[in-house]
């Protein structure tokens, strides 16, 4: 078992190093193939571990080596494969294997093909360190690792120039990459503080040791740790107010968006809350947990509202990711950790599928993402159309697809906890989700053909790419059917993750589900009515709506990026400018310069001594001797 753990963990690392060897050489298909095969190896190892865990129920815990030994402070490179981490491992390795294969096709024409695979595999390795580590420090290393890889990959096309915010809300890939990185840095500080608080009070960083001591800690400590860790989770999972980076991160290549900014990395925050579930389910931190649930619900609604009017295909999917992350936090905050984890897995499958489908469209449309320039693509891209439709149904939450089961369970949880406001918001959001996801499908694949007139000649993606995507499509359909199995599996951990609906909710479950389905179906129907029909005015955008306040608010993301720019970025830049001209140039630089100038001037002045006349030298020598004598005499007199 130990070997399997190491294979699962290090296969992507080997793949990354292998691809890095060819990082500077021209495109070589075998680099992509080898990286994909190693990922597949990692997936198979994870699968075997999962099966073993399911059958025997034995948690595999390995310690690779001592990492830090300093006084009383001991941290080992330890990895744990329990029900939580193995779920994540399966999701991460499966989605990343498919994304790797997809990228072989998608990045076909890119000259940095090999470099791309190196980064992508390095990301998977970091992500696995994050989920498999048995201590907070290892988790933090993985956490930062995925951050770096995300930065590298979002800014993969760093040569693209900056654009005005009005033309492109995310300005440029390098700008978006920096935004993502800096915003995550802010949150990571919170996370570090949380880790410090836990270490300071428990004397350990191992999960099991820390959690075992939680009941003996004071209320303030628990609340502080819970809040600080959640701030870290907010950054990585792009929760309000640290959410703007996620949509801007769409500047990266689409496989990156699918893998990092939909399926895996952004769920790390949810994973952290689930991992720390003994902390978040404490009586004392109930307030924090409820805040998490409320914030999650708010973000779900908030992101969905922005997706309603967005015209950029990838940004719509990014908003939906944000919204679904909100759902996961709502579930985790309400204590239904296993439901959050299940939604995380289901979401990873259908969202990755949706993104990859979006990538196909983007590839076919030569990087054009405006939905209003597409239309009727289904005739030319049948396979992609089917995938996108399946993924959108799953996202909209219609039975029997994956999204229905997991999302319905979350909504049910909100009802079960008697948090009816959250419940109503989540139900409405479900309707909005259905609307915007089908708005996107209808605008791109149905309705009037708008792209031909604009000179686009779309073509379907390579066959092997479509075949590679099929497992995701299958999983997007069937994942929900195994909810019971998964529940039994995750319940093996123990009481902390178990969550059951009350009998009352159980009775009403059917009606609750029907309400959600009703909202979803009406959302889809409205989208169909608005965007799918053909004919003169069927899809025409109405000037009146687009000049309305609400539309302006939504399309500008509630002006949050603008506010950040005006309130934070610009004053900061001004302040930096002031510090540069007044402090740096006038104090720091001036000090250094003056030291140099002093020596230069003194050298210049005493140069006159160098007359070349031996007699003068002897005189100076005598002067020196006299000075030494005086100094010696003085020191003898006073000391």
């Amino acid at each position, binding site marked *: 078992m130990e070997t399997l753990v190491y294979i699962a963990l290090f296969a992507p690392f080997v793949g990354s190093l292998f691809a890095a060897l060819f990082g500077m050489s021209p495109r070589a298909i075998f680099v992509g193939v080898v990286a994909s095969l190693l990922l597949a190896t990692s997936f198979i190892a994870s699968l075997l571990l999962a099966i073993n865990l399911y059958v025997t129920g034995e948690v595999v815990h390995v310690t690779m080596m001592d990492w830090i030994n300093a006084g009383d402070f001991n941290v080992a490179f330890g990895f744990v494969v329990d029900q939580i981490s193995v779920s994540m491992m399966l999701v991460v390795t499966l989605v990343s294997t498919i994304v790797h294969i997809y990228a072989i096709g998608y990045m076909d024409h890119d000259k940095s093909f090999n470099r791309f695979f190196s980064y992508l595999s390095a990301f998977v390795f970091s992500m696995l360190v994050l989920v498999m580590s048995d201590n907070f420090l290892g988790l933090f290393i993985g956490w930062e690792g995925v951050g770096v890889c995300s930065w590298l990959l979002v800014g993969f096309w760093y040569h693209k120039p900056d654009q005005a915010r009005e033309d492109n809300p995310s300005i440029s890939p390098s700008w978006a990459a920096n935004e993502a990185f800096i915003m995550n840095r802010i949150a990571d500080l919170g996370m570090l503080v949380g880790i410090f608080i836990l270490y300071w009070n428990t004397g350990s960083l191992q999960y099991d040791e820390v959690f075992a001591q939680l009941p003996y800690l004071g209320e303030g400590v628990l609340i502080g740790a819970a809040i600080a860790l959640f701030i870290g989770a907010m950054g990585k999972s792009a929760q309000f107010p640290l959410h703007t980076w996620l949509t801007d991160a769409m500047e990266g290549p689409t496989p990156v968006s699918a893998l990092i900014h939909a399926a895996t990395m952004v769920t790390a925050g949810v994973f952290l809350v689930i991992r720390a579930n003994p902390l978040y389910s404490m009586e004392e931190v109930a307030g924090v947990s409820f805040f998490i649930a409320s914030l999650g619900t708010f973000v779900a609604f908030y992101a969905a509202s922005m997706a309603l009017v967005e015209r950029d295909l990838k940004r719509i999917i990014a908003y939906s990711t944000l919204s679904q992350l909100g759902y996961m936090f709502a579930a985790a905050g309400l204590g239904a950790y296993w439901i959050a984890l299940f939604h995380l897995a289901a979401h990873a499958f259908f969202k990755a599928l949706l993104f990859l489908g979006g990538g196909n469209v983007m590839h076919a449309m030569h990087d054009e993402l405006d939905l209003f320039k597409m239309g009727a693509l289904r005739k030319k891209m049948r396979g992609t159309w089917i995938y996108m439709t399946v993924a959108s149904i799953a996202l909209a939450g219609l039975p029997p697809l994956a999204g229905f089961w997991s999302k319905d369970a979350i909504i049910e949880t909100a009802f079960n906890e008697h948090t009816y406001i959250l419940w109503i918001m989540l139900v409405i959001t479900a309707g909005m989700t259905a609307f915007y996801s089908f708005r996107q499908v209808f605008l791109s694949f149905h309705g009037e053909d708008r792209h031909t007139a604009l000179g686009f000649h779309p073509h379907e993606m390579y066959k092997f790419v479509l075949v590679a995507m099929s497992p995701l499509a299958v999983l997007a359909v069937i994942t929900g059917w195994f909810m019971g199995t998964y529940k039994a599996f995750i319940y093996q951990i123990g009481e902390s993750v178990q969550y059951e609906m009350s009998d009352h909710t159980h009775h009403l479950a059917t009606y609750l589900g029907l309400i959600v389905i009703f909202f979803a179906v009406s959302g889809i129907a409205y989208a169909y009515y608005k965007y799918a029909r053909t004919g003169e005015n069927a899809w025409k955008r109405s000037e009146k709506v687009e000049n309305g306040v609400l539309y302006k608010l939504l399309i500008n993301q509630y002006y949050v990026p603008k506010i950040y720019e005006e309130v934070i970025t610009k004053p900061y830049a001004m302040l930096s400018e002031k510090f540069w001209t007044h402090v740096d140039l006038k104090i720091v630089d001036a000090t250094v310069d003056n030291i140099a100038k002093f020596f230069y001037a003194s050298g210049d002045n005493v140069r006159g001594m*160098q007359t070349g*006349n031996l*007699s003068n030298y002897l005189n100076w020598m005598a002067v020196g001797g006299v000075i030494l004598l005086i100094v010696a005499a003085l020191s003898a007199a006073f000391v």
Partner: protein
Amino acid sequence: MIGLSHYLIVSAIIFSIGLVGVLRRRNLLMLFFATEVMLNAVNIAFAAISHYYNDLTGQMFAFFIIAIAASEVAVGLGILIVLYKKYGSLDLDDLASMRG
């Protein structure tokens, strides 16, 4: 009674005379003479102090200094002759060719 301090005062006076010679003279040959005067001033001090402490080391040193001074003069005079042959002068003001 002539004591140690008298010797040391004589030594200091001779040393000062030598020093002034080194500082003021322009002729290299004179500089050599002045140096010899200073060395001998030191020799006087060595001999006197050695006698005062009843320790022969100082007098031994004085002999060494005399020997080394002799060899130094031999070498130095050789250089002076070469210099004179080359420049036709031993005046330091004429020999300043290393002006910075």
